[in-house]
């Protein structure tokens, strides 16, 4: 009894208290390792059955136990890249607006509104994409593209409303708050003396931004874009709702397609044995790709050469934590 009391209340690092917290910390590490191991191990049968041909063939037929991931891989890459292409100018423009142009008193509420939108669940973006954006695109932009540029394979009609273009736009809207919040935070980390010095020399705001703000925050912005890319690649539900879930190699932006994440969500309920293992192999790929992207992003944020003050780096991580999913 005495020994237990002493152990419980000892102020040394040997106390039970220390071990309890140590255990919790190690538990988190074990969790991450076991997620990676379990998902990888369970995908082993599919890897053994198909090997590299999983990544190079394009027939996905659960009935015939034939699984090739090319359409899903291409769908993922195309939607994520398009989403980023749309979101990048908008979110960097918004970030510059929020950190350099807008009056001080408006900055906090407007930034908070943008952050709130990162908290809106992805299923709600999917709902809006399906019932509001898709009908607009079907009769509006999509129809225009099919009518006037339909002779190009990438705009070949018919305009269905759902498909690659819609999925990319929904993803662009979803990653916009994340990229804006993080890159805005990085820009605000640039010391005000630098801005003041430029203005004092007679520079216009355009010159301040392009010659001082962007160069000194470029690696932080690159990190923000990578995080947005990671989010776009891993997004499942919203994409599943608007991409049309057709396991075809996406040629036209107006045609339905499939991403890795949407393929898993739409097929896992009926999947077992090799089919399930093939879906888990997709999950392993997805996990690995997002992991690599996040690691590169973290490297950008923590690069020693970066001008951003240490406090700004801390709050960048705080922003990251608030990212929705």
């Amino acid at each position, binding site marked *: 009894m005495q020994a237990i009391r002493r152990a419980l209340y000892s102020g040394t690092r040997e106390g039970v208290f220390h071990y309890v917290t140590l255990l919790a910390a*190690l*538990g*988190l590490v074990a969790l991450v390792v076991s*997620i990676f191991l379990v998902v990888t191990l369970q995908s082993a049968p599919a890897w053994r059955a198909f090997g590299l041909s999983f990544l190079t063939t394009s027939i996905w037929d659960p009935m015939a136990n034939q699984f090739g991931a090319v359409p899903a891989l291409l769908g993922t890459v195309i939607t994520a890249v398009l989403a980023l292409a749309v979101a990048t100018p908008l979110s960097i*423009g918004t970030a510059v607006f929020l950190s350099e142009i807008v009056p001080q008193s408006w900055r906090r509420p407007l930034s908070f509104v943008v952050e709130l939108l990162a908290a809106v669940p992805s*299923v709600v973006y999917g709902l809006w994409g399906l019932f509001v954006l898709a009908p607009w695109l079907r009769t509006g932009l999509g129809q225009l593209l099919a009518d006037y540029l339909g002779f190009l394979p990438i705009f070949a009609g018919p305009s269905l409303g759902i498909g690659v273009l819609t999925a990319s736009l929904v993803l662009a809207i979803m990653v916009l708050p994340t990229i804006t919040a993080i890159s805005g935070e990085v820009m605000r980390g640039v010391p005000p003396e630098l801005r003041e010095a430029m203005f004092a020399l007679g520079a216009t705001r*355009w010159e301040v931004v392009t010659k001082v703000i962007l160069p000194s925050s470029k690696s932080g912005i690159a990190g923000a874009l990578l995080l947005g890319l990671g989010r776009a690649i891993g997004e499942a*539900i919203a994409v599943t709702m608007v991409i049309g879930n057709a396991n075809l190699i996406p040629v036209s932006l107006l045609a339905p397609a499939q991403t890795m994440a949407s393929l898993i969500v739409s097929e896992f309920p009926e999947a077992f044995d090799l089919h399930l293992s093939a879906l888990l192999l997709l999950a392993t790929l997805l996990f690995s790709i997002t992991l690599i992207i996040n690691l590169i992003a973290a490297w950008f944020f923590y690069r020693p050469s970066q001008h951003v003050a240490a406090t700004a780096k801390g709050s960048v*991580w705080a922003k990251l934590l608030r990212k*929705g999913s």
Partner: protein
Amino acid sequence: MTNRRKRKALGLLFEALCVLAAGIAILVLALILYYVFRRGIAVVNFSFLTSLPAPVGVAGGGIGNALIGSLLMVGLGALIAVPVCIAAAVFLDQNPASKLSAFVRFATRVLSGVPSMVIGLFVFGQLVLRTGNYSALAGGIALSIVMAPIITLSAEEMLRLVPSSQREASMALGATKQQTVFRLVLPGAAGGLIVGVMLAVALAAGQTAPVLLTALTSRFWLESLQQPTASLPVLIYHYATSPFADWQAHAWGAALVLVVAILVLNVTAQLFLGLSNRRR
């Protein structure tokens, strides 16, 4: 002179483009909220919030069971994640410079970047396939994994805000490390810890894929933790992708309830953080 005019014009053009970008961004995001509120408000009323889903074509029906299922699974997730993650954060705070801490932080950040659907698949493989059924328990566990990185990393930041001078004073008075943590550090950071938990709960409440893969859904009231369980995000997903107009209308109603709950949590957390910062 012309050079100066060119620079001014370029500067103005640039500012206009930034304002335009911000305008488009805010307009699109406002449109989403506008549609959620306009279409949602048309179906939300007391009986919508408290009754079971009705079959196709039958008037009425609601989201009562999904509301309870979401509350239960998010609560269960928080119940599992909060003690473990705060204990881990205490470890990181007590051993800030150790190699192990650096590794734990790294692993936690990796976890925060794992697509939530992969977490769902992990719990699906470990729990659902082994026990043979989808359950609220599996859903709660999946959500606890989703919450873990946010709670841990935000708790560590908050604990670090407790000044070392106070800790040293406590130790100098003869308090043990454990006493210092329980009587000084944790109470001192309580406000910040609650904010972190609120943000984690808000994130978990909106998760669809992890819950879909672990708890599936149900059209009945919750009877045990071992059964498939309905939740708001999964209900929205199913109703939105169904071909029935009344189900689609209900999806907007459920989305309104979910969005309001999440926005209230976020705004409260922000106000709370503002208050506790001012006090400090």
